[in-house]
């Protein structure tokens, strides 16, 4: 149904949609731009961080590998010296050789034994790495042990029992595996390296080296650098100082499956870097575990910064957005809101001055433009109203002369037939009707006055067509005081007679109902003009506004056009005009205007 009221709010809301999108897009664009800037930077920093820790890892591994090689070579040197010392003992020490020859003479043997023991002891001064030397004579199962720093009697007896066992228990072949390399062995709760050399007189010389002694200098160094040093054997068994609590199995398998890598990362309770070195002269592997934490102490700042960078970037983005929000988006939003208000017709909307120069300029310009528009619009309205009012006056004053002719003609005919009573009636209505026009200078009249005029008009018409026309009206008492522009109802009644009335068999009925309507908190006056004629052409009902704009239509229906424009001008969209089809046939015009009375009509 065509609505008279101009839907400004609707047009504003339709335009506000792309504006909302623009705002989100602006923010999104900023985020994307910021991301494009920072993400590669953050990625680069993280990568540098990773790269530098990798470099440090390699350097630390390299350094420790160097240390291990250096120290391992030193141990190898010690072992080699020890080994060649044993060979020298076995091949050149005459006292040891003569032991066998003195087996028959107990005393001579005892003296030789003293000499051998003395020789072994005095050799320790240039064999500092050795812990214990011994000579074993299988013939009489004699074991000569030289141990310059004996820890306790128990230690000494555990060691000599172990050594005797090697030669005496089982097939007596236990010593074989110690004859080619320095092999580790466990005696009591201590780990040793043992090497045995057989002499050509079928006796044995041998030496023990304590792993603790080999390890202690390294462990001192290791403790200084917070790393841990270990001895393992080639099969990956932890020797001293015992397996590390958390990384034992991984570490040992790493050693066993030697893959030639410079270092490996081992995961226990924490991450370790493991570097190892195999000894040449023995079956031992020297290993250090460097806690990742300790190692990366050298790049602590890097690391920490690395973790913080994404957060910092995020924070920066937030701050940036907040700043942007305050700086651009908020003034923008205010601007948009202001525009929307203007669009709705609130031309008195003004923007708050912004702090930034650009937006202040925009705001000022906006405000100036808004006030100019407001002024312009007020002028235009006033001009329009003035011109329309002039037009209306003219219209009102233009009373249809045919009506006057017809009426006078009716009076004449009544006079012919001598119906004095009817002539009197006619004349009275004519006087009322003409007087209404004569004093038609107020802008507004009451519904009662309008209806009185319609009554005069209809009674005149009824006298013209006594058998064909009926008029009825209902006026609610509350509505009769309501104000409306003059000639609001009358043109439509006239229109009904002009277009719907035909002098056929049927009685043409026109009814006017005026009531008060409550819509929410507002009261309206509803005027309904109905007939039982031909009704409106459908095209007119659908396109009322367009039709009314058409000048050719306007000329023929000047009354309706007048009423319509009057309503529109006076009530600015608050009034409503509907053309409907009546039941079962005929036309119905519904006019709804705001309910106002004399008291309310202040302006």
């Amino acid at each position, binding site marked *: 149904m065509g609505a008279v009221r101009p839907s400004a709010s609707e047009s504003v809301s339709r335009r506000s949609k792309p504006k909302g999108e623009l705002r989100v897009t602006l923010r999104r664009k900023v985020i994307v731009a910021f991301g494009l800037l920072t993400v590669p930077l953050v990625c680069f920093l993280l990568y540098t961080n990773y790269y530098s820790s990798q470099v440090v890892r390699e350097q630390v591994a390299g350094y420790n590998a160097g240390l291990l090689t250096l120290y391992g070579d030193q141990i190898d040197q010690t072992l080699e010296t020890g080994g060649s010392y044993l060979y020298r003992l076995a091949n050149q020490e005459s006292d040891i050789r003569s032991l066998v020859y003195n087996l028959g003479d107990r*005393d001579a043997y*005892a*003296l030789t*034994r*003293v*000499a051998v*023991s*003395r020789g072994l*002891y005095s050799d320790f001064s240039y064999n500092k790495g050795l812990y214990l030397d011994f000579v074993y004579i299988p013939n009489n199962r004699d074991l*000569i042990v*030289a*141990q*310059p*720093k*004996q*820890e*306790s*009697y*128990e230690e*000494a007896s555990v060691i000599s029992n172990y050594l005797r066992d090697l030669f005496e228990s089982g097939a007596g072949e236990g010593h074989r595996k110690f004859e080619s390399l320095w092999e580790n062995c466990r005696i009591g709760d201590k780990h040793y390296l043992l090497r045995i050399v057989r002499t050509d007189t079928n006796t044995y010389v041998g030496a023990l080296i304590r792993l603790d002694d080999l390890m202690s200098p390294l462990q001192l160094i290791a403790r200084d650098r917070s790393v841990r040093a270990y001895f393992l054997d080639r099969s990956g068994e932890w020797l001293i100082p015992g397996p590390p609590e958390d990384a034992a199995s991984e570490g040992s398998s790493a050693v066993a499956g030697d893959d030639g890598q410079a270092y490996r990362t081992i995961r226990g309770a924490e991450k370790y870097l493991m570097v190892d070195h195999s000894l040449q002269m023995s079956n031992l592997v020297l290993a250090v575990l460097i806690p990742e934490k300790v190692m990366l102490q050298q790049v602590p700042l890097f690391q920490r910064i690395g973790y913080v960078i994404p957060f910092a970037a995020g924070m920066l983005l937030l701050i940036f957005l907040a700043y942007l929000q305050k700086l651009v988006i908020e003034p923008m939003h205010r601007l948009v809101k202001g525009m929307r208000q203007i669009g709705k017709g609130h031309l008195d909307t003004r923007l708050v001055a912004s702090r930034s120069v650009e937006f202040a300029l925009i705001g000022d310009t906006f405000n100036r433009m808004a006030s100019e528009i407001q002024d312009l619009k007020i002028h235009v309205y006033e001009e329009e109203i003035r011109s329309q009012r002039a037009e209306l006056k003219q219209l009102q004053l233009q009373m249809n002369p045919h009506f006057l002719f017809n009426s006078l003609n009716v009076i004449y005919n009544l006079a012919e037939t001598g119906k004095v009573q009817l002539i009197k009636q006619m004349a009275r209505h004519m006087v009322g009707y003409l007087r209404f026009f004569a004093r038609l200078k107020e802008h507004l009249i009451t519904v009662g006055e309008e209806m009185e005029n319609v009554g005069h008009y209809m009674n005149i018409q009824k006298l013209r067509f006594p058998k064909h026309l009926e008029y009825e009206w209902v006026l609610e008492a509350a509505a009769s005081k309501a104000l409306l522009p003059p000639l609001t109802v009358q043109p439509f009644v006239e229109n009904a007679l002009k277009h719907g009335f035909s002098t056929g068999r049927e009685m043409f009925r026109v009814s006017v109902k005026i009531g008060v309507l409550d819509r929410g908190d507002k009261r309206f006056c509803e005027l309904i003009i109905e007939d039982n004629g031909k009704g409106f052409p459908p095209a007119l009902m659908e396109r009322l506004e367009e039709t009314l704009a058409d000048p050719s239509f306007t000329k023929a229906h000047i009354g309706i056009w007048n009423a319509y424009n009057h309503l529109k001008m006076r009530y600015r969209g608050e009034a409503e005009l509907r053309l409907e089809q009546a039941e079962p046939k005929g036309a119905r015009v519904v006019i709804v205007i705001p309910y106002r009375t004399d008291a309310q009509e202040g302006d």
Partner: protein
Amino acid sequence: MKRKPAFILAMTFGLAFALAGCNPWSGSTAHRPAEQSKYKLIMYYPGTTPKDLALVQDAINKRLTEKINAAIELKPIDWGAYNDKTNLMFTSNEKFDLMFTAAYLNFNANVAKGQFVQLDALLEKYGQGIIKTLGSNWIAGSQVNGHSYGVPTLKEFAGAAGLLFRKDLVDKYSIDLDRIHELADLTPIFRKIKENEPDVTPLVQSEGLTVPGLVAGYTMDLLGDGLGVLDPAAGNLKVVNLLETRPYTDAVKQMRNWYLEGFINEDAATLKDDQLYNIVRAGKAFAFAVTTKPGKDVEMSAQLGVELVQRDITRPQTTTGEATGAMLAISRTSADPERAMMFLDLLYTDKQLINLLDFGIEGRHYIKDSNGMLSYPEGVDSQNSTYSPGTAWMFGNQMNAYLWRNEDRDKWAKFKAFNDSSVKSPALGFMWDPTKVKNEVSAAFSVQKEFDGAIRTGTVDPDKYIPMYIEKLKAAGLGRIIAEKQKQLDAWAQSVRAPLNP
């Protein structure tokens, strides 16, 4: 502007004082004689550096400043490096004042090289306290050719040969140690142990700690190296071969018997002293031989953690070796030998000073009970004490030192009695200089090493091997060594006896 005259005045005064060469603020030192200006002594001695050395040194210096206007810097050197380091110090003419020395720390050689200041005059002038405390006997005992080069520490000046027994076994078998007078008295005791305690060796001997070695050492005057000895019982000054003396041969034969009976550990000839102590610690030994002095059993019990009792088997004897067992000498490089002697005198007379040096600061390093006996403060023991250098026997008058609670209250009285009761060797004060027969001595030492251990522990048959031993010694030049020693001894007797017995 106003202050300028005052400034000029001050300048003028300052200049006046400077020109006059007298500083108005340092007048107080002018009273003291120039030679009494404060001097800092430096003393070297073998030992470890205790944690609180500097603290104790400060306390000592406070005392020394008061007494002799001196300070001291204590410089301990590890035992192993002591000889080398002190030699190096002399070679490089390092300035220092005092050092610890003893017969076994090259005392003779250093005297011969003139490294020590001759002390006779200094002792007379500044060391009256030392002379009074020690008595002329002990001073004479430490002299070289009648002159003092070191001041001996007043401690035990004698030694005896004895045995330490495990107290629990002594009690278990109700052994009366007082009834042991000669080695043969031990045989039934060892037999009893051997029979009843299969895990325990009745007598554990090592290379160094043998009954014959100790018995010979404390019945004979070994005259330094034991190559040519003096038998005090003989009553003359004849140098003889130890292997041909009765105390030695008797003891060795006894050992052989015990060895054959299985009383002695089989590896005795190759056992080291520390290994012997380990055997004792492990409770595998019943008895072992040591040099004794009063309270040796208490000392060794604490050291080895096994309760031991002591029985001496010889009378205490004093030889030059005992008399020169601990001395302090003044270096020829000392800038102020007088002050060094004053300090030495204090070590013998000042009870507070010697105890500071020996035991540290009261309350911090030890506490003293009502009887004047020492113990460690709460939570401190000999292991974690910050000043427990164990050097008390090295310095001054030991009889002024406090006693620890676990020590015999009469320790010093017993020491005095021990010293007084000892047999003084007729050669007390004689010092053997082997330089002329250096090669023979070193050859003889090799022979000694070859036979000593085996013979003294009873490992080999003495009847067969002592003659062989003698033969080899003679081949090494023992005859020439004895002749040289005899010559030196006679010359010494001439120089010393004459003034002593005018």
